[in-house]
């Protein structure tokens, strides 16, 4: 009987400590940041959020989802601040009154990857739309994110520019994150649109190579948007503003510009703000 009591006591102590360390009621200073998987997947998100939390003591709940979901969270007032990369949708979001202070502050770029054998013979072409046109007309395999992410939306823009639809039998929608989509393309030896950072981190493990880069349309711009506190009183406007300001600060600029230089021996992200902002 005593053994039972001791056992129960231990269990309760264990669980009690859980409540204290992990489950302690969070202060209301939490900031909910809705961002995209591409920001998280490079590792940049973690670095910036860690720095911010250390500096201010605030807690950020960074939820990495697809661009579509991030904007939707904004529309419901379920997030306090958005960090996304889909300019057309962002503009509409602000126009509809859901967001304020939209600020484009950094960019990286996409590259078009393809098999070494280059069946569509597009290697070295600079015009992204032309590349897509040729891939489609030669009916060579193209793998898409297929998930309405920023990358996917960019891809759709290029198809539109090209004026063609991809060949139905040579088009796969992976429905997954960037790394997995590239893995699928690698497996099936197809073409894929990917952001440079993902490519660099996967380079050693895949057979695909860059077949096209540098086109203006391949620039991937990231913006911050504050969710409109007038429309959603439950939003943590102060916390969001603090994070907003930090991400646009010089400290942030330094972190962003230096990110990845060591690992990939090139700069991944580029700062877009003028110094007076």
């Amino acid at each position, binding site marked *: 009987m005593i053994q039972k009591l001791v056992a129960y006591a231990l269990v309760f102590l264990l669980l009690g400590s*859980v409540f204290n360390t992990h*489950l302690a009621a*969070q202060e209301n200073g939490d900031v909910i940041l809705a961002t995209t998987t591409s920001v998280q997947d490079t590792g940049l998100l973690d670095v910036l959020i860690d720095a911010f939390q250390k500096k201010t003591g605030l807690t950020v*709940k960074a*939820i990495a989802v697809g661009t579509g979901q991030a904007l939707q969270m904004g529309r419901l007032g379920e997030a306090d601040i958005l960090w996304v990369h889909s300019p057309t949708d962002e503009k509409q979001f602000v126009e509809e009154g859901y967001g304020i202070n939209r600020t484009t502050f950094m960019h990286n770029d996409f590259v078009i990857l393809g098999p070494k054998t280059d069946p569509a013979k597009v290697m070295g072409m600079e015009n992204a739309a032309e590349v897509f046109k040729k891939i489609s007309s030669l009916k060579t395999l193209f793998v898409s994110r297929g998930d309405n992410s920023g990358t996917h939306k960019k891809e759709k823009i290029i198809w539109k520019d090209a004026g063609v639809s991809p060949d139905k039998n040579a088009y796969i929608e992976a429905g997954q994150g960037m790394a*997995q989509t590239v893995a699928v393309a690698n497996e099936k030896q197809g073409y894929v649109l990917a952001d440079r950072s993902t490519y660099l981190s996967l380079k050693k*493990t895949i057979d695909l190579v860059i077949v096209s880069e540098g086109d203006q349309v391949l620039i991937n711009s990231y913006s911050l948007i504050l969710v409109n506190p007038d429309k959603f009183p439950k939003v943590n406007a102060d916390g969001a503003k603090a994070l907003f300001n930090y991400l646009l600060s010089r400290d942030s600029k330094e972190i962003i510009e230096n990110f990845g230089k060591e690992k990939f021996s090139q700069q991944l992200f580029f700062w877009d703000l003028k110094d007076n902002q």
Partner: protein
Amino acid sequence: MNFILEGFRKGVILLFGLDSGVLAVLKLSLYISILATFIAVCIGVPLGSIIAIKRFPLKKIIIALINTGMGLPPVVVGLFAVLFLSRNGPLGFLQWLYTPKGMVLAQVIIATPIITGLSLAAVQSVDQRFYQQILALGATTRQSIWVLLKEIRLSVLAAVIAGFGSIISEVGAVMMVGGNIKGQTRVLTTATVLEAHMGNFDIAIALGLILLTMSFIVNLALTFIQQSKDRQK
């Protein structure tokens, strides 16, 4: 093939090197799933026993509902939990979204029907006369359930093991309700998904192996308890 071997190697390094990130994730996984299992057992075992013993209208329908609940897809539970816990949802005032509390809640919802259903079946499989015998010895309803459960403790522990297994390995609910936030709500399963997402397949495999190992250890402990009761025979 290289991936898998790399995964093993990385896994060993991460575990024995006591990488702090991995340890944090491991601890949180254990805390959340063990706590959720404990709560689910406190609800499910007595509930299953009472439903099995008592007669009441619509009993068969309720049992069918419980059996359906045993197969609830975790991701669906996560989805509904998010809807309820979100700011606009009816439970938004709790502010449990993107916190471990919310994750425990979601996992309790997943594990409770399983533990209830299995306890229910275990108690129902006992001869009705045996239960009457316990009553005939002068037990209150509460006492008789306690005595009965002690008799079928093998089956009850099996229910606990099944309940724990169902939630330690799920990713849908904890991903949606927790948000996979580093240092706050990241657990082994969501971390594995993230690493795979990022293309770090070797780390993903390592985490997966750590998850399996940890799950095995917990189940080993539970199984020892279960089988030790048997040795007395």
